């Protein structure tokens, strides 16, 4: 019974109470880079979920054999290998998506969430909880990316997933897209707003 709760916790805690982006404030760099538009944000989220889940499982499987003094290197090699494989698979089977994400896929390697989860969770837990932890944290990251991407594309370009949603009559009435929204600093402001809302709702997250 206790294991069931912890499995559920591994999957769902990172979505809100222990979200990697807005609670632990990890992976902010890629939140700035890929959220000017909604679509790359979504594909980036899915790629991170895949890489995080599988690297968590692999590291968890070999966790007892890894010499402690080179564990970070081992983790990096596994992550880098997986990211290159994902990149190659995308190029072979989803060329358009791979073209759109281009350099961002490679940047998954440097995403702090990956190293954080491998070091903090997969090194000390069995493969199944590690797998769920990877999926959960990946989803937690994706949720924030999608929220930020949604507002930045809507307010910055007046479109969503490339389709225009702000009606032409708005523009005729003098509405102007907020050009500031497509610049990276605005992602930080939106992330800060999400943190504000979340801490206002969850009193136990507030620091005294």
């Amino acid at each position, binding site marked *: 019974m206790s294991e069931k709760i912890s499995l559920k916790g591994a999957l769902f805690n990172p979505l809100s109470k222990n979200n990697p982006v807005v609670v632990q404030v990890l992976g902010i760099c890629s939140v700035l880079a*890929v959220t*000017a538009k909604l679509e790359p944000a979504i594909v980036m989220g899915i790629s991170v979920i895949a890489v995080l889940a599988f690297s968590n499982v692999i590291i968890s499987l070999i966790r007892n*054999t890894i010499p*402690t003094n080179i564990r970070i290197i081992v983790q990096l090699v*596994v992550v880098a*290998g997986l990211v290159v*494989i994902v990149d190659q*698979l995308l190029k072979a089977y989803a*060329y358009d998506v791979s073209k759109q994400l*281009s350099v961002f896929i490679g940047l998954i390697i440097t995403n702090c969430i990956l190293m954080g989860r491998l070091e903090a969770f997969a090194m000390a837990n069995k493969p199944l909880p590690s797998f769920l932890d990877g999926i959960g944290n990946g989803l937690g990251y994706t949720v924030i990316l999608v929220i930020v991407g949604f507002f930045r594309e809507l307010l910055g370009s007046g479109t969503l997933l490339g389709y225009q949603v702000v009606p032409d009559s708005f523009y005729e009435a003098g509405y102007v897209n907020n050009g500031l929204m497509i610049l990276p600093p605005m992602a930080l402001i939106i992330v800060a707003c999400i943190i504000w809302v979340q801490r206002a709702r969850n009193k136990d997250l507030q620091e005294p």
Partner: protein
Amino acid sequence: MNKQSNTYTLIYILVLAAVVGTALAFTSLSLHDRQLENADLDKMSQILASAGIVPEKGQVAADFKKYIIAQEIVDCDGNRVEGDAFNVDVAAQSKLNDCGRQLPVFVCRPDDGSTKYILPVYGSGLWGPIWGYIAIDSDGTTVYGAYFAHQGETPGLGAEIVKPEFRNQFEGKRLIKNGVFMPISVVKAGQKPSGNEDYVDGVSGGTITSKGVGTMLDNCLSPYKSFLNQLSNN
């Protein structure tokens, strides 16, 4: 066995490197053909896009065969030379001096029966390479359409060069004015270039990428000067 000993660590990392290396080599080899095919198809659809032809999914190769009636290589004097135009490495050629280059020309015949000449261009933006294809009318002067792509320009800023809003500005611009060859300039919106060449507005917030497009057109279209002059004199 002592897992903290140097021997264990050394053997461990060597084995790990070998396993990961093998996995990567295997993935790369088994997917290589598919990736090359995808890259070729992508190139075909880019070439067609510059002439305003958008093939349906799965029809790219067939449409390319249908619309591109000839692929040639010319030199800087406008003479035909032998070679496989499709596989010319435009990136490498763009770094040579004008007369050392192989210049690919794709002759396109859209449904209306007219003839367009499609020329590849290659340059650099802010973060990485940018490239494109310029379709020119049979008079050798008027731009019929343009297609641009990039590797990693900033979404919403420099990456806007791929959008129709930017590309469509090139339609109808002239490369040869009063018999003088002048590549199209890219300038800040509202400004004019110093010469009297034709110009388009750059992307606001994407100044370096826009300048890159201008430089790319200058560098890659100038070697075609003789070829285009011949066309316009005929």
